[in-house]
């Protein structure tokens, strides 16, 4: 009992420390190069957490999040106040797509969502009036600038990442979250014991989409320019999936850890080796190593290591207690 409590204390302490560092980061390291990396890292913390709600707890769509991010970008035209509207718009769209795509399952679902991405990209290119066509859309340039340009974006991304984490945490502890985990383990059995699988999956999908859409809104404002091909950039979409896998699928802290490790590494590779395309090879190698060596992710693997050690220490502790008792 006391052991569990001290564990909780460590957790709370660690959480406060991480949060404090995250909040003070622009003050600690104010140079624009660092804050630029920080904005993207925090963005991926939010994206990976949002994807995990759908992909880690329930089922996986590898590309749709990316698409929704793009739509969120188009929605987030005006400064940050419009961001929630971007979230609502993507959620509404996700409701429609999800209703259709979720008729299929597993492998087919993955492919159908890929098909949807390309179809909507085609629409984005052809409905010129709405999206600016292949030429893309420009966002208004923010009124602030200079050395502090990145800071408001950093806090906006941080707020969304924290929101994603809070929602993810709430879901994890709810009956809804339990249902999603059951669906992930065995959808047919979950249905058989009375989990409304379709409604649950659709809900997770829409929540995930809304969060990704809001992050996309801020992202579009940050990079100030979006165009349809941009959605194809392979590293953005699949990165958030890889981050979840690296950290630990279906865990709360896994996506955060994955994003904090991978995004700076990815930016470093792209900046230094981007010209030669060799960074793709580095990235692929990291990818393969993660999946082949740590398919369960860091958090579950470490968790198992700790519980194994406890289990080994466990039997001797009660034995010692008994020996003392009489």
């Amino acid at each position: 009992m006391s052991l569990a409590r001290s564990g909780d204390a460590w957790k709370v302490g660690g959480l406060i420390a991480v949060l404090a560092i995250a909040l003070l980061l622009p003050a600690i390291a104010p140079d624009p190069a660092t804050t630029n990396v920080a904005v993207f890292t925090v963005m991926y913390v939010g994206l990976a957490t949002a994807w995990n709600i759908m992909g880690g707890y329930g089922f996986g769509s590898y590309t749709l999040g990316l698409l929704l991010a793009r739509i969120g970008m188009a929605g987030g035209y005006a400064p940050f106040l419009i961001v929630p509207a971007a979230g609502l718009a993507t959620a509404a769209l996700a409701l429609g797509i999800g209703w259709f795509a979720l008729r299929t399952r597993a492998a087919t679902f993955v492919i159908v969502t890929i098909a949807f991405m390309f179809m909507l990209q085609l629409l984005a290119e052809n409905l010129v009036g709405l999206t600016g066509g292949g030429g893309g859309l420009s966002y208004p340039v923010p009124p602030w600038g200079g050395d502090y340009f990145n800071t408001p974006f950093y806090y906006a991304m941080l707020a969304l990442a924290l929101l994603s984490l809070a929602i993810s945490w709430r879901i994890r502890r709810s009956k809804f979250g339990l249902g999603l985990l059951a669906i992930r383990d065995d959808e047919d059995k979950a249905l058989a014991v009375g989990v409304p699988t379709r409604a649950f999956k659709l809900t997770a999908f829409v929540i995930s989409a809304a969060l990704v859409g809001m992050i996309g809104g801020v992202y579009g404002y940050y990079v100030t320019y979006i165009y349809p091909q941009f959605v194809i950039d392979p590293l953005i979409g699949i990165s958030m999936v890889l981050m979840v896998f690296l950290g630990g699928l279906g865990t709360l802290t896994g996506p955060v850890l994955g994003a904090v490790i991978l995004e700076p590494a990815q930016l470093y590779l792209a900046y230094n080796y981007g010209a030669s395309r060799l960074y793709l090879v580095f990235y692929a190698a990291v990818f393969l190593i993660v999946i082949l060596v740590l398919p369960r992710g860091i958090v579950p693997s470490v968790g198992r290591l700790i519980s194994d050690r406890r289990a080994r220490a466990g039997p001797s502790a009660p034995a010692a207690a008994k020996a003392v008792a009489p």
Partner: protein
Amino acid sequence: MTLVLEAAVLGILTGGVYALMASGLTLIFGVMRIINVGHGALVVLGAYLSFAASRALHIDPFVTLVITMPVMFLLGFGLQVVFIRPLKTDREALSVLVTYAIALGLEGILGYVFGANYVQLQAWYDTASFPIGDFRITYVYVFGFVLCLAILVVLFLILYRTTFGASIRATMLNRTAAQLIGIDVDRVSAVAFGIGMATAAAGGVVFGITTAFNPGSHYDLISRLLTIIVLGGLGSLRGAVIAALIMLVSEDITSVVISPVWASFVFFVILIVVLLVRPQGLYGVRVRERI
């Protein structure tokens, strides 16, 4: 009307190439239950290998298949053993990531070796054409169609007329049962992956003569191949062939009748309508995907 007819004929001819590429993909899915997102990159690799071989040896692109098909077969065998076989749990989800990583790695290597510029395989028949009725058809489409048809026939003969083909089909039907009656499913899987790669090499040659390509061409290719095998039904060779024809014919007719920019849109609409009625695809079997 002539234009529509011409578009339909062209659609069938190019559809043959996509049928070949898609059958490799659906075969791999059927045997291993993995989604090979790297298939498009492997087709592009096949095209580049033929490009390099025909340049270096001064031979016809089609003749390079004598070299590239065995090379790609061995490569596929190796990739399966090293990267796919170790996946024991959660195969479907992890295979998407692993094969995606393979695609990225190949894109990076090809970009490093060949650069990002578009290239195209050259042959005397790539622009020469012959008249048929009121329009002309370029030779390469006919040659490509005949080649793909021949390979598809060989593939069907291997699957349905040989003992090894029977063990491939047994593995597709029920992996555990196949293992129980003494089939070496690991070997079957590796060979099936190799066969898939060999067909990708053949598809790559025709793709490379008819289309200019660069290392990034695989994204477009894989999205089309994936939608083809979903329409046909995952794991169904017959479905892959028919869906490929539907895709290319509908695209070519749409670009003539409406506009090229809407070409693939019609196919997506067909896909959606089919999946609303039959979520398992045209020839797919409704199975519990996880037991």
